[in-house]
């Protein structure tokens, strides 16, 4: 922890400038917190690439432009490819001291944008890919994605007598990315903003591909109160349903290892998308969590 704490940023050291301002996202949107903080750390000389997702839908509304840095919209599956292209183009122009960042949602990362991301990591391009994970395709009206957790009610995984909503657990996106032998990868949560700032600061200094996966709540899709957005993202980590970890030099490292998990029921009950869950469904979630943590604690500490 001492080695890595060098990258800590205090909130008062952040720039006063706002690079993501006046967007039309829903009140209490978690993803906008992730984008806003990321741009504050990365700075003005940043090229942002956004595929089709909420963040591009709420900011590029002609003649309004909420990004105060360079930003462009990529085709849905092309975030990784476009990032590589922007980095190569900037290099060809002889630009120095710039950042290239992509903000893709969970569907745009784990499903649709996956091959371009994999290719960009494989090429070893100097890019930063941020996946903001709100656990479904929220922009198009809450459809199930590869990162939707078990028991989630979405429009394409309805809950009823026979099904508890989504019947698959979240894809292990972080480990899949790490398996490429990426320069640096980390998970984060908007409930732990200081941890996210540190990882961004570290990502800024790493040469080569970097992947950050941040859990960002969505009041509209999660059926939660707007003021609970940050609390829910924190609860997810405290209850063990999400984890804060890093991957570097072929090694995983777990950043937070709770002695005792907070209540899973408490986390689930604050969200409309889990309201239908029966006790046996919650037990499936807890069982899956325990299995995952047993493995992480064995090899990631």
């Amino acid at each position, binding site marked *: 922890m001492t080695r890595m704490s060098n990258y800590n940023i205090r*909130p*008062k050291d952040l720039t*006063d*400038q*706002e*690079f*993501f*301002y*006046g*967007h*039309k*996202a829903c*009140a*209490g*949107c*978690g993803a*906008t*917190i992730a984008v*806003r*903080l990321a741009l504050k750390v990365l700075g003005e000389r940043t090229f942002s690439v956004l595929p089709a997702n909420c963040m591009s839908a709420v900011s590029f509304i*002609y*003649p*309004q*432009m*909420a*990004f*105060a*840095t*360079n*930003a462009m919209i990529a085709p849905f599956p092309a975030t990784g490819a476009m990032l590589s292209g922007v980095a190569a183009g900037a290099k060809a122009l002889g630009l120095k001291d710039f950042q290239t960042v992509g903000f893709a949602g969970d569907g745009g990362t784990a499903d649709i944008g996956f091959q371009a991301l994999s290719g960009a990591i494989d090429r070893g391009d100097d890019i930063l890919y941020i996946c903001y994970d709100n656990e479904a395709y929220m922009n198009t009206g809450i459809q199930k994605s590869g990162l939707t957790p078990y028991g989630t009610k979405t429009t394409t995984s309805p809950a009823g007598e026979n099904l508890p909503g989504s019947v698959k657990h979240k894809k292990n996106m972080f480990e899949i990315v790490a398996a490429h032998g990426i320069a640096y990868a980390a998970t984060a949560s*908007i409930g732990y*903003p*200081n941890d996210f700032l540190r990882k961004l600061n570290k990502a800024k200094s790493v040469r080569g591909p970097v992947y950050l996966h941040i859990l960002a709540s969505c*009041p509209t899709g999660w059926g939660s*109160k*707007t*003021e*609970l*957005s*940050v*609390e829910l993202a924190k609860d997810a980590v405290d209850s063990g349903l999400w984890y804060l970890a890093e991957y570097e030099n072929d090694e995983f490292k777990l950043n937070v290892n709770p002695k005792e998990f907070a209540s899973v029921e408490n986390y689930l009950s604050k969200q409309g998308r889990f309201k239908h869950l029966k006790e046996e469904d919650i037990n499936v979630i807890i069982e899956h969590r325990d299995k995952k943590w047993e493995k992480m604690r064995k090899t990631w500490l």
Partner: protein
Amino acid sequence: MRPKVRAYKRPDKISDYPSTPAFESGHLVSKNAGWRTFKPVVDPEKCVGCLRCYLVCPDGVISRTEDNKVEIDYDFCKGCGICAHECKLDAITMKKEADEDE
């Protein structure tokens, strides 16, 4: 420091439109204040300037003042209430917009 809101002049002729699908960044023409039913009000007596609210504001409308407190840009606050909920000292309270007029 935030981008300024500028008046939008409707194009009269085709050459007034941007010539490519590119546009100036940080160009704001409308506010978000009308989205709000409750507004956050900071109590400067209770605020110690921990900047937790500043970190977790989705719209970035909370900024630092010179005396190490926070102030809110009501032109763009959507009234989500995260700042009031996350403040450990209850220095921010959500007040109903209409109450001010009474």
